[in-house]
């Protein structure tokens, strides 16, 4: 026990190993126990959310929290590498300006208010239904039109295929919204 305490003292280690006090003998406990933060973490295999190269990413997480994100060396596209944006993916998901609550603005208001998620969903559904009800066109010159141009959707290039599929399915095939667009053109 005393021996153990003594050998943690750099001077003692220095004397015992005949070294000059600038090497491992001078390391603190913290240094000697240094380990990468993703040791023993679980890994999810992912894809960078930025550009369209689609670099592989390894998402390290422990107990429901993200630990770090880096490149996936197995990817034949990226071979483990990431550009500055891809390298910043952990910050993308954890930075201080990330929104986690609903913000709601009443007509003519000068400020945001809070809103519960389920309430917001109900309100949005009501808005959609109301607008659609008043503006839906079933036919024109006895030909089927089945659409509304009073509601629109924008978005998609950063979304998953499954998300875009459901958007087109519900909004167009279900509700008759034709005004649908995203960043893509050609």
């Amino acid at each position: 026990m005393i021996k153990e305490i003594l050998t943690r003292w750099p001077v003692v280690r220095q004397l015992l190993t005949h070294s000059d006090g600038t090497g491992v003998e001078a390391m603190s406990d913290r240094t000697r126990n240094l380990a990468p933060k993703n040791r023993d973490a679980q890994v999810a295999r992912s894809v960078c959310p930025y550009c369209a190269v689609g670099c592989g990413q390894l998402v390290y997480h422990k107990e429901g929290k993200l630990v770090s994100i880096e490149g996936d060396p197995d990817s034949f596209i990226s071979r483990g590498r990431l550009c500055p944006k891809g390298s910043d993916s952990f910050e993308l998901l954890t930075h201080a300006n990330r929104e986690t609550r609903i913000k709601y603005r009443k007509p003519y208001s000068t400020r945001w208010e809070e809103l519960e998620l389920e309430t917001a969903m109900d309100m949005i559904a009501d808005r959609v239904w109301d607008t659609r009800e008043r503006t839906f066109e079933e036919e024109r010159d006895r030909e089927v039109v089945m659409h509304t141009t009073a509601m629109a959707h924008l978005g998609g290039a950063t979304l998953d295929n499954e998300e875009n599929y459901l958007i087109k399915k519900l909004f167009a095939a279900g509700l008759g919204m034709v005004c649908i667009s995203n960043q893509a053109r050609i």
Partner: protein
Amino acid sequence: MPGLGTSFGRGGATLGPSDLVNSDAILIMGSNMAENHPVGFQWVIEARERGATVIHVDPRFSRTSAMADIWAPLRAGSDILFLGGLIHYVLENKKDFREYVIHYTNASIILPEEFKDTEDLGGVFSGWDAKNRSYDSNAWLYGACVGGGRVAPKSAGRHSGRHSGHCKDGAGAAADLGNCECDPTLSHPRCVYQVLKKHYSRYTPELVERFCGVPRERFLKIAETFCSASGPEKTGAICYALGWTQQSKGPQIIRAAAILQLLLGNVGRPGGGILALRGHASIQGSTDIPTLYDILPGYLAMPNLGLDSKNLADYVATHRDPTGWWWNFDKYIVSLLKAYYGEEAKKENDWGFNWLPRVTGDHSHQGYFLEMLDGKVEGLFVMGQNPAVAGPNSRLERKALSKLKWLVVRDMVELETASFWYDSPEVERGELRPEEIATEVFLLPAAGHAEKDGCFTNTQRLLQWHQKAVDPPGDARSETWFMFHLGRRLKEKAKQDPRPRNAGLSALTWDYSVEGTMQEPKVEEVLQEINGYQVDDHTLVTGFTELKADGSTACGCWIYSGVFPRPGENRANQRNSQDLWGHGWGFAWPADRRILYNRASARPDGRPWSERKKLVWWDEQKKEWTGLDVPDFARTKAPNYQPPKHAEGDEALAGDKPFILHPDGTGWIFAPKGLADGPLPTHYEGLEAPVGNPLYPDRQSNPAAMRDERPENRYASSPDDRFPYVMSTYRLTEHHTSGAMSRMLPHLAELQPEFFCEISPELASERGIENGGWVTVMTPRGIVEARALVTRRMRPLLIDGKMVHQVGVPYHWGSRGLVKGDSANDLVAISEEPNVRIMEAKGILCDVSPGRRARGKAALDQLNAHLGRK
């Protein structure tokens, strides 16, 4: 996508970045690949290390130029002149890969007498309707061919209304080529090859120097270098991005590159083809499974009132080609309708065809934002996009948002689109006051990519699954969650209200399982629906060849079919790469073919062109195609197969026709159908230009492009003393698009903290601008201020005897975030290229003056004063 789609058959890159390692020459144009696709660029460096020559042609000397072997400056907007110059060079010097051209392209087809080129008509092709400012979409068909075969049905020509630019070419029965005459010697004056030659006869190196600003010797060096990467032993690739697409003639620029690659015999071969470098994680996906107005999943057309929408039979007849792969069109639309509407979709009700909404006009981003400005749009959903910064004429877009009754924004941060009502230049300038804005705004937090399951489709058509690692924080949810639960609520309302208008919504299949405390839908179920299944027992299909038109199959997106062929086998989630092209890792559409049109990597007789460039070849023993990639061809069709008379579909294509989506199986040098503005790319100046069109003085810009002119969206004249400089917007590697994913993040924001304008030393000297100072940039649309970055990397060009200055403006800034700045898109007009309705953001006119702009309302006075100048 129509550029590649009409040329080759599918709107997607023909190769991926890793295949560039096989290139002998790489031409990067309309792209800053090292900047915007840095990790993809590693393959360009590898190619260069192995001896490939890398050529970069661009208005700016960028981080890509720094790594290129040859760089040439280019006047923004003159890309077709340059590419036409290369085509001219190939034809004049007989550098085309003759055997490839004869067998694999439509160069030998003899065009009808009625066809007239721009050289004949002073800048337009035959079929131009000056009143409607559009072309007759059947004007360039081979169709009036003699000697038997089917003739184009007359009705196809009588439809008015604009044909969708994104969908398959819409050729339908009208594309039937019957027994067209060909001249395999390529010498008949009306064969495509000779018409091409005549079309580009004036695109000489001298013209390129005079109007592109590329010194003649540099141009010839590039031409020599790139065009020698051709033939059995060599290939060259072309990489492009938004430098080409964000122009009023974008698809035509891409067409010019496609023509060049077909002439050089580079398509479908390792290290060859065209790499379309797209800009967002799943933008290929958002075009394939489109959140676009004019198409349905898999490039099927949205029904268009008056064009094809009378009933399903009419719709199919308009779009189904009698020959080539699109003969299967009906199988795909019926399977899609079954996926959407399930049990209620029956033969008697045309499988629910009449529940699909009809397109009746311009419902694109530009189209509906203009309607929104006029108060005609009540509600808008915005998910993962930021039009307040990145939309064309972002000033107009922000004002348009203020006319909405309600707005739902879903994103990870409070971006400018959500805060326009209290934090925007319009509020600062008094143009908008919160107390007067009626818009009800909902900002819902969104889950990030590591917080949800799902797949992206990247620039090389590859579906890759991202696995969920952790739950999203707080009230943040995925879009899948949002759409599912919104849909659930709306279907409830429809149930209470069984009028015909709600029949589609009620019929919509919407019973995805949910799991966990958040009630998150099981994303794999959605992907399985996209893959397709047998309706009776929900067995997954293994590919699109199993799809039928009799209602027995359902499939959400036929080109993705095969991604989930068996339970538990999500190929997008496979990560066992076998080779350079990544077989075993992810799933490339279609059918996991990595290099498209790879039949062309073999000779007409089925042997590889060379050992060095072998990819796919005919195995005479096994009587099938084999090789290093999945053959993009009917596996057992022999190379010498000749179709019997009246054969249909793929059986109508011979064994030496690689472009199987086309009704004639050839690569289209001449595009008889599919583009709204011409079968051959023609040089027009941009909608604003510093010079007149040297080729056709009476046709300054693309006659079919739309300007959407109105007081908030004005244009400069060409040229214009008030706006003497040529400007292009672009991206920096440190930021991402509108900045919502970079300006809010300290580690990226600090790398490029301020909005700057890149200026040449000559322009700086002329206007008294100092490096590190400020400049004010103005166009007829807007006024912004930026830091002045004076650099040799920008240079003025001598164009037709006068000095033309070019400036560069990165567009990442807005009023929110850790680093803020004016938005460059305030300067860009809302304009619409005729096929895909993309705006022109490259090569527009501006003024640059030293000093900061006025603050508040005075900024508008400053702009108006400038506009008022003569």
